[in-house]
Each structure stands twice: as C-alpha cells, then as structure tokens.
C-alpha cells in the first residue's frame, strides 16, 4: 500500500507543477498588458504597478519570471483582489470552506443513497420498482440544478415560508453559539437538497449497472452454493465488488461536481467559491480568477489521489501490482 501511495503522489507532483506553469502562462495569454491583467480594472494605489513589475520581474526573461512566480506561490502570495480588498489566498480559502460544506455532504449523501437505491433496484432488474428508480434517476440528472433550485425556492421559501430562500446566515438577527450552527443548517437544506438530488441520480445509475454486473459474476454462484442468504451475498460479495467502479466514477468526476456548486451557489446566493467565481468574472478580477483556478485544479488532483487510494483499498489486485506487501 505504501508503494502504491508513493506512486500516486509521484504522479500528482508533476501534474501540480503543470497546473502551476499553465496558470503562470495564462497571465501572458490574457489579452493586453500582463500587469493590467494582474491588477484588474481597478484603480490602483500609486506605485503598485511598479511593485508588481518588481515582484513578478516582468522585465526579466520568462524562465526567471516563472521562478519568481513559483517563489511567490511558495510564500502563499497569490496576488491581491482589489474588488474585495483582500489577498487572494485568504479569500479563496475562506469561501472554499462553504463550498466544501455544501458539496461534501451532497457527495456523501449521494454516494450512500445512490448505492442503497441501486442495491434495492438491481436484484429486481426489470421490475416496476427497478424501472421506477431508473426513471427517477433519469429525471434527477436531466432536471437542471438551477431550475430545480428555483422551484424549491418558490415552493418552500416563498409560498410555504418554511425555509430561507437565500444566503447562509440570517441577516436580521445574527445568532451566536449553537443557534448559529442550526441557522447555517437551516439555510443549507434547500441548496443541499437540489444539488444532492442530482448526484444521487448519477450515483444510482452507475451503481445499478455495476451491481448488476457484479451479480452476474461467477463468484456469486460460489457464495450462493455455500448456502448463504441472498441478502448476505448481496451485501458481502456483490457490494464490495460493485463499489470499485462507483468510487472511481464519483472520485474522477469531482471536478464536474464543482460546476454544480457554481450553479446552486448562484441560485441560493450561497457564499462559496462558485459564487465568488461568478462575481469575479463580472468584476474581471483576474488575480482572484487565477487563484480560484489554481486551488480548484489542485483540489481535483487531490480528489484523484484520494480516489486512487480508495480504489486500492477496495481492490487488492490494484495493491498487488505494487508488490505483495507494498
């Protein structure tokens, strides 16, 4: 396992380096003066342009510039967002927490719910129940997230007035302590629900297919031939084998799930990265956009490494290709 982990990290290293270099090159590809690109369309304090020119060594050869850029990154300097009057790194990390709060619970709920639905549907493949789940999952990921979100807002926030329509905290009275936590959870329900529905649908579809596939494998016959019950065979033999492709699909699609975040955060004014991304486009806030790109790209690489590790944890054949006791 250790050898495997090292090989995955060895793979991630060059990828992250490439991301950094590409991110660096973007500055030079953006039309117009790179300094203008770095600073954005905002009135800058006098001398700042010179400071940037010096910091990034824009008068020097491009290789030196790359080195300086990397050096700046190493110091945590991703630039300054004038639209928000904050350093980019702090701002991005701050907002990333809220996106993670939304997405991680959605992905976790989707993984569990989707797999459970698939386990219920696959053994009755072709039945009314199975067709129902298949139809629902088809609807689930055909319905646009922003549309579903707006419908939910209209019904539960505007008509029924059960739940808040927007934001993450109540603005009128700012609760503290335990009340603050429940307040956030209260605001989380609608956005979480609309994005979860979508992922449940995707996971259920993938999982149903892989459960069906695992059920038709020969070893299932051996398990049944021991006299084990249907339910036991399903949970202990079929599921562990069916999970392998499911984990891979969820993990490798982590990047796409961030697009879901953008949509749902926009509809519900959820103060996460997606929201920040949209406003920074509107503001032509290039340093901030760059920072968001960089961190999400790295997040995707991390998600892939985590996926590979889970994959190896689930499948001993993968571990073995890196040595018996690796």
């Amino acid at each position, binding site marked *: 396992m250790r050898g495997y982990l090292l090989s995955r990290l060895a793979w991630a290293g060059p990828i992250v380096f490439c991301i950094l270099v590409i991110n660096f090159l973007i500055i030079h590809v953006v039309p117009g003066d790179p300094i203008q690109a770095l600073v954005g369309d905002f009135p800058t304090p006098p001398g700042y342009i010179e400071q940037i020119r010096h910091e990034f060594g824009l008068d020097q050869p491009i290789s030196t510039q790359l080195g300086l850029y990397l050096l700046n990154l190493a110091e945590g300097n991703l630039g300054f967002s004038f639209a928000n009057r904050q350093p980019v790194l702090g701002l991005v990390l701050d907002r990333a927490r809220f996106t993670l709060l939304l997405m991680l619970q959605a992905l976790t709920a989707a993984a569990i719910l989707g797999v459970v639905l698939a386990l219920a549907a696959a053994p009755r493949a072709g039945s009314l129940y199975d067709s129902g789940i298949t139809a629902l999952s088809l609807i689930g990921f055909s319905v646009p997230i922003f549309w579903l979100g707006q419908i939910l807002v209209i019904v539960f926030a505007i008509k029924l007035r059960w739940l808040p329509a927007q934001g993450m905290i109540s603005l009128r009275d700012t609760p503290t302590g335990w009340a603050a936590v429940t307040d956030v959870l209260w605001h989380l329900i609608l956005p979480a629900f609309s994005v979860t529905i979508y992922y449940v649908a995707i996971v259920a579809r993938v999982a149903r297919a892989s459960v069906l596939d695992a059920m038709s494998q020969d070893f299932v*016959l*051996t398990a049944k031939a*021991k*006299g084990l019950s249907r339910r036991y065979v399903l949970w*202990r*033999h079929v599921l562990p*084998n069916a999970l392998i492709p499911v984990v891979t699909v969820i993990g490798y699609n982590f990047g796409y799930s961030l697009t879901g975040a953008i949509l749902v955060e926009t509809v519900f004014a959820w103060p996460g990265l997606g929201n920040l991304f949209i406003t920074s486009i509107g503001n032509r806030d290039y340093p901030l956009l760059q920072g968001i790109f960089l961190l999400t790209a790295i997040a995707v690489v991390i998600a892939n490494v985590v996926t590979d590790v889970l994959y190896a944890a689930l*499948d001993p*054949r993968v571990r073995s290709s890196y040595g018996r006791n690796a």
Partner: protein
Amino acid sequence: MPPPRQNILEIEGLTLSYRARGAVVRAMDGVNLVVGDGEAVGLVGESGSGKSSLARVVLGLVPERVSRIEAGRIVIAGRDVTRLTQAEWEGVRGNPVAIVFQDPLSYLNPVMQIGRQIAESILRHTPDLKVAARVDELLELVRLPPACATAYPHELSGGMRQRALLAIALACRPRLLIADEPTTALDVTTQAEILALLKDLRQRLGMAMLLISHDLGIVASACERIYVMYAGHTVEWGRTQAVFGYPAHPYTIGLLKAAQAARNAQGRFATISGDPPNLAELPTGCPFVPRCPYAMAECSRAMPGPFDAQGDAGHTVRCWRYHETASGIAVARPARDAG
C-alpha cells in the same frame, strides 16, 4: 444397479430448458441419474451436452428467469427439492450438497481473502467450531500452506485456487460433492494432483462425489459408476468397467474409439465424426441420429429405452440396437489412471 445403499441424489426424468433470445434450449431431457451415499459417480459428455446444467440444477443455481424445469424430479437425501424456492434452497446448498466449479479464478471473490471465504462456509454450517483453527485444518486438508488464509485469489496459482475452492466446499461438510470439470482449467501435472487429492479426500471423508468431465480418463480412474451424456440425454450408464469395457451406445463407442485413436496418434483432441448437436433444433427421437452409424428409421420416432444392457447388472443404455453394438465391438477400457 441401483446401489444397495441409500441414495444421496436421485434425478428422475429431469427436463430443463433455457429460454434465450426467443429460442428454447433443452439442456437436459429426461435425464436419469443416481448417486449413492459415499459413491463416486462420473458424468461424461462433450462440451454443451448439459453437464454443468445438471450440476447447477441440483443446487437450484440455474438462472431463475430464463430456465424452467419442465418435467421430472430431483430428490436429495430423500427430500424432493424440484420446486424449492430460493430461500428453501439455502437449506440444501453447501450441506448436504456442495459444488466445486470449473474456473477457479472467476469463481473466487477477487476482493475477499481466501481464509475469509472458507470461514463463511464454516460459519454458515458449523458455527460452533473455532473458525480460525478450522480454516487452518481445511487448508491443510487440501494441502495449501497456512499463509494462503490471508492471500487473495489473484495471488495464487491455478492449482492453488482450485484447492481453495475445494476447501470452501469441504468446509460445508457435504455428503455429496459435485465437481464440475475441476481440472479442466489446469495444466496436466496439476490436473493429476487435484484428481489424486479428490480421490483421497472422498475416501477419507466418506462423502459421495459426482465428478463431471469431458475427459474419459479422468472419470474412469476416479469413479465407480459412469453416466454418459449426449445433447441433454443420459444415453448410457453403469459400472465403469461395464460402460468402458463393453460400451453399448454408439456415442459411447465413438467416444472411446476417438480417445483410443487420439492416444495412439498422440493427438490433442478426441473427436467423433459429425457436428455437435444444436440443442435449439434437436430432431425428435434420439439426438445422436445425425452422427450415428447404426441409425435406422425407428430411431427418429422416439427416444428408446432405457434398456438393461447384457452382462453387468445396472448397465443401462438408451439405444434400440444395443444387442448388436455391444456384441459387435470390443473396446479396451482406458487404462489410464491419472492419479
């Protein structure tokens, strides 16, 4: 015969069909087969003759949706199991009847340790035993090193996997072990080892065995009685010496001659002339007619017999002309003892 002991398995006139893409395939048609307690019985026939279907239907493991038992019955240890539900089958599987499948890699769970797969059988059938100790005992029984308990299937060789599959089956303490081509996927040396192990274990544990193979030599060396299957029909059966020494059905004769020719010519394959039958479009009457040198008009009307072949008690054949075939041809029984 039938043998003078109690029967662990009786199959009477069993007809099993599969429905696949519109066509109906009769994998078993009026099959008769009996295995006495503690007896070693062989089932031979070329591939596609319905041997695996027989092995599976005895454990209720034929795919429910596409298969149907159209006639006949299966009796296990005196209990009619023909129409059991899946839940009821759980009381038959493993104990009293266990099975070892052909391809040892695909029939082992790739993500579960061998020891755990054996332990499941123990926990299901003899939960009061000390599981870890019993796993070691079973590994020793099938002559696998104790370290195999923590190994995964892909880490073992073909022969070791087959032993693991055997240990899983034996852990259920079966009265009847069905071995469906247990050596086909293995190289010749390993084949001989596994076969010797099977013979030894059967005697030591006193269980009955139904050994299925397309290889005459293997069943001849390991079994007291033999059934010959052709296109879903059991066409001839009896004591091994009788069936192989004085074969009465033209198909058995063809098989033995082809095997002999192959041995003499060092050939790889024993074949008889003509094409293997298409089970979806079988002629009425005897399915062997298109390839049979003895065929006559009568043969296409109805499946003949079963008749008692002359000579040995219990030697039975399903051919009109068994008098002529049996007296006319003397085939030396294959003397090969693969063990």
